């Protein structure tokens, strides 16, 4: 019995070591650094919550936090709607189903850098395909400032993010929809249920766990997104699209203030933790 226990620990230890080295250590190290005054090249000095207090006092950080919220909430909301629509449509497609799924997955498999550069070019004031097309068709007389107007710039980075992320939603929801027993739909039809009723009372309740998990995962990824914003706008114009990741980069790499940068990047942690706890509790309740 004892030998088996030892063997059990031995078998688990590589994974435990791996997780400690690659997940726990960097995470705990980041938390520690956020509690220090750490400038690149100098030793870290423990300052408690000073970095967080500095950030809270900073109007710039508050703007960054608001931008991050808008960027994430808008992206997730639209990705949810498009993802469900995509899944519903594909669920009913019989011919060329695999091919269409493959095509729709493309945005998700293309490297983010390529996506960001492509959208940046599409939205260029002078040479962008969108403006050129709109001007050539006579719909507008001069180019739209997609990346220059503060509101439109935020909308533009959100659009690029949605384009990259919606296939993940669609494919996940489709997989969940395909596990829903067809008998339920047949029974509902006998009871006279229409498409909307079937969606609201059968499909949605059946896939809600997947919806919750996909939304949670995507929220975490979107909240920490760097490439799209950095490549398309560098956080500009001004600080109109500056989000947690680009702000942390500015603080950590350009200004060499690692302590403050860590605090800025961890600032969203309580929100993410709350979301995770909420989703896990919800799933647990559903399971019971």
């Amino acid at each position, binding site marked *: 019995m004892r030998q088996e226990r030892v063997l059990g620990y031995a078998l688990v230890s590589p994974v435990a070591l791996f997780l400690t080295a690659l997940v726990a250590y960097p995470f705990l190290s980041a938390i520690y650094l956020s509690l220090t005054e750490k400038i690149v090249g100098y030793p870290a000095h423990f300052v408690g919550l000073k970095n967080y207090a500095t950030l809270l006092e900073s109007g710039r950080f508050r703007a960054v936090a608001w931008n991050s919220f808008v960027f994430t909430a808008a992206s997730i909301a639209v990705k949810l709607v498009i993802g469900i629509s995509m899944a519903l449509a594909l669920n009913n497609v019989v011919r060329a189903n695999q091919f269409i799924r493959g095509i729709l997955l493309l945005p998700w498999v293309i490297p983010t850098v390529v996506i960001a550069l492509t959208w940046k070019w599409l939205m260029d004031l002078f040479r962008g395909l969108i403006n050129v097309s709109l001007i050539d068709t006579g719909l507008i007389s001069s180019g739209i400032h997609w990346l220059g107007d*503060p509101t439109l710039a935020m909308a533009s980075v959100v659009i690029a993010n949605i384009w990259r992320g919606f296939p993940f939603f669609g494919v996940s929801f489709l997989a969940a929809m395909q596990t829903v027993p067809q008998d339920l739909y047949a029974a509902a039809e006998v009871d006279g249920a229409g498409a909307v009723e079937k969606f609201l009372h059968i499909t949605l309740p059946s896939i809600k766990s997947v919806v919750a998990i996909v939304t949670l995962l995507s929220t975490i990824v979107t909240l920490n997104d760097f490439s799209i914003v950095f490549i398309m706008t560098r956080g500009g*114009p001004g600080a109109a699209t500056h989000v947690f990741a680009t702000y942390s980069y500015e603080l950590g790499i*350009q200004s060499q203030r690692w302590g403050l940068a860590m605090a800025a990047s961890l600032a969203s942690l309580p929100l993410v933790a709350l979301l995770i706890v909420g989703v896990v509790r919800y799933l647990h309740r559903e399971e019971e």
Partner: protein
Amino acid sequence: MRKPMPTLAAVVSVLILVAVFAPASGAGKLSLWRLKTYIPPADKILDANAQECAKKVGVELAIQTYTFDDMWTKFTAAIEAKTLPDIAELDAVGPARLANLGRLSDVSDIVAAVSREQGTVLPNAEGAVKFGGKYYAVPHYAIPLLLFYRKDLLTKVGAEPPDTWDEINAVSEKVKKAGIQEFPHGFPWNRTGDGYDPAMSLLWSYGAAWVDKSGKFVGIPKGPATDAIKLVTKPYLQDKTAAFDYLSWSGSTNNESFMAGKITFTPNGPSILFQEDSTQHPLRKDTAIKVMPKGPAGRNLALTFVMNWAIPVDGKAQKDAKAVVSCIMSRESFTRYVNGSFHQAVPLFGKLLESDYWNTPDGKVIVDTVKMGHPVGWPGPTTPAAAEVISSNVLTDMITRVIVDKASPETAIDEANKRIKEIYDRLAVK
């Protein structure tokens, strides 16, 4: 069942031993990190020179490159991990930052040797590499930021090449009114060198530096800075000769927009000339350069894009590294590089500037620009604090606060001064 454990332990132990005792780099091997410029043929010459020098010294040289955008990502990781290369080409603020950390070797001997052969270091380039009487980097070259303009469009609207910031605004208005271009004023106050370099030149030309001659923080003076900010925000807010999109440009978008014929003016290094020459661009004949504009306090240009050779103390083969740098900077090797740089690399040792290579209309403008330049943190020396003012985009943020957030210039200046003071309080010079 018991056998796997000792086997696994043995394998792990061997791996650990290999990792611990493996040499960081083999004997006779040096690493060199350099900037990847917008002039690939010049980069090729530099690499060939460096390899030739390594061969002479009897070492193997591994060259890695970085761009202006990722330089500090690479160096930040290396500073912390104590894995800086044997030879590092650093930007204008790199020597100040690394020397202040005690991570650079004294290279005064190399500078003295190069000076004997090529003349003394230009006084305006010294502030970026000489601290406490010692040189911590050898000035390699400067990439001056010039005012690019379209001479054909200026002729069309009957305007002379502008000499002041006001004149750029006025000519831009004329071009717009003539219906030639919608947004001719291509000055991007963004988070790239095309933003912060002109921002310094602008403020200094209005007498609005943030430090005194000793490098001590005194704050951006509100009166002249307000005038300067009002002037450069006017094209965005009133004249509508500049598009808000310019504020989100990357380092190369202004080159592309200029070469696409969409803007009349833009600040840039000589790389536009190279790109137009090498592609036989139709706008080459209409492209002209001028020294950046002057303000009420004269012409006080920033010399931001200066590259310097440094020998980090991390390297174990200091002598070999110094020998390679000395060889790269020898007259024969360096002249070959400069003359192949399409006027992008301007020497910072006096005698080479007298060469015939610079005796062309464009060459003269380029050399004049470098001679008139001041280091980051002027009128004081370059310091880690001055470096951070630039790298944290304080100056361009000040301008965009007025353009994008519609803050008053006075409020934007107050905010900038608060940020700069915090930086100077935190980063005292050792």
